[in-house]
């Protein structure tokens, strides 16, 4: 391809206009990725920052009841989100619930990421019976109805934070493992792997010192997307009554408790729901944008 320099008069010698160039897929994609990252980061920060700094904010305790101030609407008597059916500050409850929900979500994706990365990398690199066993295992798990499986495990082992975290982590590892396996399958055929083997590096050394660092970036993006799913799963479990025991205020439970008042106290359901939407949309946009950005960079490098 020949690139034509602009002429002295400033007119482009090409028939392709600047607008067409701007709207072309190749230029639009990085721009969209940047927009997604920005919007995603803002939405995520809108939820995560107040949740993280809840202890520093001048709010009443999330379990502090005032039976004389039940179900106050938002912006009443200093309650930004209003109060719930026991006169507790709803904003404090949402932030407190966020700490539980996000903690479970983060821990769950870290554990599932670790399991998925290890299992997927081993399956892709070693192949043979190792691949067969891991692949069949993840296929078997993906064929099970996820929520039913989670409810069953929680019913068997009790609804504590460690159990719910473990259950969600185990539920999500196949996503990471599948992606890692496919990427390792491609990477292991590359010359640098042969070179490492020729230099006498062990299989384990090749896998963890060369292959895994090359796939971990893309995998971590999937893990970020799984965070939103983990928060949703935790909320669903809490909503169905299988979340952490009371008095933990989780987002799902806030919605579940508030739905009895949906027509008279709309904020009890709407505001916690809105916070979940903001976080999930934010994390998804962020993950999506980062993935697009990485893809663009790789293409650029390849070109």
């Amino acid at each position, binding site marked *: 391809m020949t690139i034509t320099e602009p002429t002295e008069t400033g007119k482009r010698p090409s028939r392709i206009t600047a607008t067409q160039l701007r709207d072309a897929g190749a230029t639009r994609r990085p721009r969209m990725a940047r927009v997604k990252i920005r919007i995603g980061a803002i939405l995520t920060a809108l939820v995560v920052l107040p949740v993280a700094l809840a202890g520093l904010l001048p709010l009443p305790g999330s379990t502090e009841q005032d039976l004389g101030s039940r179900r106050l609407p938002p912006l009443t008597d200093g309650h930004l989100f209003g109060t719930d059916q026991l006169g507790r500050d709803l904003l404090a409850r949402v932030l407190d619930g966020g700490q539980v929900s996000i903690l479970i979500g983060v821990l769950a994706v870290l554990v599932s990421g670790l399991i998925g990365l290890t299992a997927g990398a081993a399956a892709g690199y070693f192949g043979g019976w190792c691949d067969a066993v891991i692949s069949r295992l993840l296929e078997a798990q993906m064929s099970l109805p996820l929520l039913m499986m989670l409810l069953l495990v929680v019913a068997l082992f009790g609804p504590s934070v460690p159990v719910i975290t473990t259950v969600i982590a185990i539920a999500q590892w196949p996503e990471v493992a599948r992606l890692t396996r496919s990427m390792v399958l491609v990477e292991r055929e590359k010359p640098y792997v042969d070179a490492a083997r020729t230099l006498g590096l062990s299989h384990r050394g090749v896998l963890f010192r060369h292959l895994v660092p090359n796939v971990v970036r893309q995998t971590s993006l999937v893990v970020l997307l799984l965070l939103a799913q983990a928060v949703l799963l935790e909320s669903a479990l809490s909503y169905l009554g299988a979340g952490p025991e009371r*008095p933990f205020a989780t987002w799902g439970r806030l919605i579940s408790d508030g739905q009895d008042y949906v027509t008279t106290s709309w904020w009890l359901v709407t505001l916690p729901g809105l916070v979940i939407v903001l976080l999930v949309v934010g994390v998804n946009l962020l993950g999506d944008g980062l993935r697009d950005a990485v893809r663009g960079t790789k293409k650029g490098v390849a070109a």
Partner: protein
Amino acid sequence: MAVGSLAGCASPTGGPPPGSVTLGLNRSLVSLDNKLNQFDAAVTVQRAVRQGLTRIGADLTPVPVLADRFELTAPTQWTVRLREGIRYSDGSPVRIKDVSTALTMYRQVSGSYIAGFFPEWPTVVPVDERTFTLETKRPLPVLDYLMANILLTPASANVPEELQSGVGSGPYVVTASNRGTGEYTLRRNNNYWGRPARVKQVQVRFVPEESNRVVGLRSGEIDIIDTITPDSADQLSGQPDVAFERVRGTRINQLFYNFRKPDGHPLSKASVRQALSLAVNGKRLADEVLAGSAQPAVGPVAQTLNGAVPCGTYHYDPRRAKQMLEAEGIADGDLRLTLIWETGEFAGDTSVMEAVVQMLGDIGVRVRLRQFEPGGNISEWRQGRAGDWDILGNGYASPVGAALPILQGMYGGTPERERTRDTYQGYINREVLTLLDRAYAEVDAERRQKTTARIQQVVWDSWPSMWAFVPNSVLAYRTRVADVSLEATNSYQLARIGLEA
């Protein structure tokens, strides 16, 4: 074709079929028999299919149903005569043998709720084809109340377990049932011996979430919902097609202590139990959390029951509570309790429990909440077989209408019954047992009432509940359904309801 499909989508598909009424129950109707369970909402449906010799009427006194005569003819003998021409839905006649078999089956079933009310099981002695006597060794002056809970089934079909379907003498027959989902279809019994039911078909559905029941009623998918919270009543008030029935209830809801604790445990001391009671602001719970829909209990049974007397009130005095705990050597943070309950045990249950956690926290008592979903294993927990607990959130239905049998059922636990964990949360009080014996043996109504009052005072003074309250029964229904008449037992006669033309 497209228009046709759209029209199909738009048509109301969720509403009850023509000539049919749909009930949305808050608890799963696991059977159409009451041998093991008898929560309020079930009574209406169970008695539409099976009937007893008597039933508890609107004024909480026994009303004859299958018997046209039920009278005390000697201190230990009641004479009963079956109505003439009464038949089951399959056309077979109701016989005296069905009564004796029913009594045997209720006695044999393990963990029976009804058995607790009977200090002694009567023996059936036939006199003629329709007349028989119920004989007891000791006087049983409230037998007419108790027999309202013994539902009759043909002797050959009765077994010592809950009956899932089968033949009854009531105005409805079961045409379809699913115990798992709690859904039943009842059809009018064309062989009914009395005045036939006005509605041809009744659908019974289990809708555990109160919000779903409210939405179902608003949308017309459900016609009648029972045991609703004042908040739900708020949501429904002003709806043009919805009406309410409210009565003072007979059910008592309690935060009941675990009486199976070892001797050294703080809860085994009445003073500790009293101290914890003083930390609960019952007035605020009743007025604010339950929005005035309940009255704090003033005795161990609901005051609406015949023979109930006021024994005291729950005071709120956290300072004294703390002092009493300190006097027992319990400092701030020393006492940690576990409070268990099943979702839906009573309207507003979760809010009450969470409010109590804060109230006890204010006197330095930490409470762990353990909530069981319907269908969970709370019954094993209650019996102390699955885990340890300290306080139980529980509702005790009072379907017999009189205080004495309820006192017997709740507080008449004996060491023998405790061996099979058949006492009420391990409550055994020898003084109460002696007084119960004396009350049951007393034929003179006035003297019996005096002893019944004494029993209530003794029970009250033993502080069995941290707090207790009697909720009003509230039922909401669509105005297309006519003549829904809620009775104090939180049930109504299904055969009497009709549909507006």
